[in-house]
């Protein structure tokens, strides 16, 4: 395991409101790192900060390079990819075109101005991996919600992102799809660092390598699934009394 | 077109009619003014036809819309000449439209009769200018102001060639006559924001204002002028683009007592004008007024007909050759074509705007003034002269 991304002492301030308040976080390759915490804890904001969407103080370093102050697309080119709480793909373009575009951020202007004759190998491979090989020529706009989310992840993969920040990637997915997604994430994480923001505790329990809990803009707890689930402070602000109930649900499922 | 055959004329007068073009803006910003010119052209044609036509032929008008755009004027002029094979074209208003049409008429060796006062410094073989050139309007207006003791002038104009050239002439004149030009401002054509300009005029303390604004801008200018308390007694405004048509829109309460310089007013008392005004009102309604460009357009048709009669031909070369000295007893007095520069002699008149919305002559030149488009007869204008 190598460290892919190090965030140190991140602060995000919205007109006096401290949405993120001194967070330290490291993401390692080979792990699926879950970020959980109450609504409004600052998870999305943290991701926004890392990807250049929110202004922050502190430091984000990837492979020895400081990312603070860089533009969104520069950060993306350094291999940091993200998805959004609501899937955004290019609805008018086909699945294959979506992936091809995502694969091509580094292309020379000259190759951009030429026609695509064959799909690049990595696009074909990823189509397979995200289970959309059959829909390569389908316009992305008519994909189902979950498929769009897989496509989004696929777009990060072909773009050679090796730090993936996924904001609620299984929102709206059914059970099998969740499992499929979970396995996909682990497959991906073999060579990359994956961070997942989620509220689905079953999913977390099933797939998290490591968990960091945010609360009120700060890290409340961090560790293995069991460590954080048993942390009384986490239970109080986040899991609630009913997490036993959840566990029962999970068992029956 | 000396070298080529592109200009082969297709005018056909073998039948009992002769075709002429009427090219005015019927749409766009200039349609305000140009439709009135169109009315006058039709009136003249009807009268001439009723009197037996030209060389026994009835005049047939082919009408086109210039759409207030110079390129359209050029396109339509070419169409009238090459496709409709008209013997002559009447129309145009802005200098921009004339400049756009000029090469078309020269290349195709055809004739344009242009009826509006303009900035001079032009004389094409293929154009007859029946409106005033500067020495028949601007210079008399300056003479009048100088005579009434004006020692300083503020110049206000729309930002295009006529006002700019007019003001260049005024500056040269003023330098020669010891009149001080205390300000010179241009507003975009169609601009209605005159607060700044009027404030500056007001603060300048000039004896008078020389106004070359065009169109709607005059409304806003005179309202602002009146509202800051300036009056014709304190600081008269001499305008060269406000005719009977425009006074109504400005509102008589804002402009009463102000001055204008033209060659023709509806109120001129002469048998020819009475006939013209009566005929016009009979045709288009008693509430309509006649104005200088309308009269010049009306004259232009008669002048063309008279020249054709004299030449005994509708051929361009014959008309050009016969034009010199052709005259017409027009509403403004006798006008005579100068064969040299294709302009006509005109009587200059200063008019005062009165409560009934009409302009009344308060001064007029001693007889018709010979056209001098290049101001060759004025020493102080030496710097303005151009090689043709």
């Amino acid at each position, binding site marked *: 395991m190598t460290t892919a991304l190090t965030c140190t002492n991140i602060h995000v301030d919205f007109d006096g409101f401290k949405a993120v308040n001194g967070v330290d976080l490291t993401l390692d390759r080979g792990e699926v790192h879950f970020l959980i915490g109450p609504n*409004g804890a600052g998870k999305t904001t943290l991701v926004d900060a890392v990807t250049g969407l929110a202004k922050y103080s502190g430091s984000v370093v990837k492979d020895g390079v400081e990312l603070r102050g860089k533009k969104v697309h520069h950060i993306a080119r350094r291999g940091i990819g993200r998805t959004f709480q609501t899937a955004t793909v290019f609805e008018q373009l086909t699945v294959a075109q979506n992936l091809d575009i995502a694969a091509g951020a580094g292309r020379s202007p000259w190759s951009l101005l030429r026609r695509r004759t064959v799909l690049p190998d990595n696009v074909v491979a990823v189509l397979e991996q995200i289970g959309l090989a059959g829909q390569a020529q389908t316009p992305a706009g008519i994909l189902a919600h979950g498929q769009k989310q897989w496509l989004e992840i696929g777009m990060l993969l072909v773009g050679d992102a090796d730090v993936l920040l996924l904001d609620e990637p299984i929102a*709206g997915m059914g059970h099998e799809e969740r499992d499929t997604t979970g396995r996909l994430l682990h497959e991906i994480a073999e060579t990359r660092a994956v961070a997942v923001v989620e*509220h689905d505790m079953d999913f977390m329990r099933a797939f998290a390598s490591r968990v960091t809990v945010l609360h009120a803009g700060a890290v409340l707890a961090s560790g293995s699934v069991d460590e954080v689930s048993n942390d009384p402070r986490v239970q109080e602000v986040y*899991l609630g009394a009913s997490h036993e109930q959840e566990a029962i649900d*999970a068992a*029956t499922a | 077109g000396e070298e080529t055959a592109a200009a082969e004329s297709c005018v056909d007068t073998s039948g009992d009619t002769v075709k002429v073009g009427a090219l005015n803006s019927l749409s766009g910003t200039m349609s305000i003014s140009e439709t009135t010119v169109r009315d006058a052209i039709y009136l003249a044609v009807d009268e001439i036809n009723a009197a037996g036509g030209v060389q026994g032929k009835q005049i047939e008008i082919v009408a086109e819309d210039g759409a207030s755009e110079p390129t359209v004027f050029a396109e339509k002029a070419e169409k009238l000449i090459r496709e409709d094979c008209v013997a002559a074209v009447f129309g145009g208003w802005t200098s921009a439209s004339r400049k756009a049409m000029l090469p078309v008429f020269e290349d195709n060796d055809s004739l344009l009769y242009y009826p509006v006062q303009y900035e001079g410094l032009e004389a094409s073989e293929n154009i007859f200018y029946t409106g005033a050139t500067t020495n028949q309007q601007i210079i008399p207006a300056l003479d009048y102001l100088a005579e009434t003791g004006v020692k300083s002038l503020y110049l206000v104009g729309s930002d295009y060639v006529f006002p700019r050239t007019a003001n260049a002439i005024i500056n040269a004149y003023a330098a020669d006559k010891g009149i001080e030009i205390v300000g010179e401002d241009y507003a975009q054509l169609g601009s209605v924001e005159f607060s700044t300009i009027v404030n500056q005029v007001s603060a300048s303390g000039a004896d008078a204002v020389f106004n070359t604004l065009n169109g709607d801008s005059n409304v806003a200018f005179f309202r602002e002028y009146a509202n800051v308390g300036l009056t014709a007694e304190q600081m008269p405004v001499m305008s060269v683009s406000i005719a009977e048509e425009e006074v109504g829109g400005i509102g008589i309460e804002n402009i009463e007592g102000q001055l204008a310089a033209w060659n023709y007013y509806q109120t001129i008392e002469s048998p020819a004008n009475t006939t013209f005004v009566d005929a016009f009102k009979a045709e288009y309604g008693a509430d309509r007024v006649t104005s200088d460009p309308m009269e010049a357009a009306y004259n232009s048709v008669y002048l063309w007909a008279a020249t054709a009669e004299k030449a005994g031909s509708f051929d361009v070369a014959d008309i050009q050759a016969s034009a010199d000295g052709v005259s017409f007893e027009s509403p403004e007095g006798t006008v005579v074509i100068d064969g040299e520069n294709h302009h006509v002699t005109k009587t200059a008149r200063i008019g005062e705007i009165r409560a009934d919305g009409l302009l009344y002559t308060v001064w007029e030149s001693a007889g018709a003034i010979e056209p001098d488009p290049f101001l060759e007869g004025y020493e102080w204008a030496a710097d303005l002269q151009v090689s043709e």
Partner: protein
Amino acid sequence: MLRLRNLTCGYGRTPVVHGVDLEVGADEVVAVMGHNGAGKTTLLRAVVGLIPVMSGSIELDGEAVNRRPANKRVKAGMAYVPQGQQCFAHLTAGENLRLVADGRKSGKALIDAQLDLFPALRPLLGRQAGLLSGGQRQQLAIARALITEPRLLILDEPTEGIQPNVVAEIESTIVDLAGRGGLSVLLVEQHLGFALQAASRFAVLRSGRVASTGGTGAGAVERVREAMAI
């Protein structure tokens, strides 16, 4: 309360939901389940009137409401919480609530009741809703729907993006409200545990058609799984 007969609807000219028959009785909670893209959201949008019905009918209290605009259906007692944490982004959270309370006699009290249910919203009332976190927005959306005192509450994946302890609250609230009487619920939910807990009957949609229906008693989990699996 609500009856769908042979309902077909979709987007543009493409039907997505085909001939669905479904009934929600008084004080009943019915869960609709199905894969992504099965047409659950589409069905609900047709029920509230955001997309036109292609054929079939929607009856509220025995009266066809097919042609009524959405706002009329809401006034007739429906309330809808759309999928995706939607709110009026340019209004403050408080204004989001007041908007629906406007014109109601006990508007203030209704808002207060919801704030008791979702205490996390209280400190956020002055914040622009578009700036709230996803879960905060979802809570706001549910609160907004409840303020209208609906007789039929239509929820599209209400727990998506909400923290576990609040999910539990929402669950018990729904069960509570329905149990008190006067409220029927049509619930779309992926979260099997939640759905079967809250609902008394379920329907599974597959490719826009009803694949299975039944009560949420014993064995329901298996039947749902089976209906969805194929």
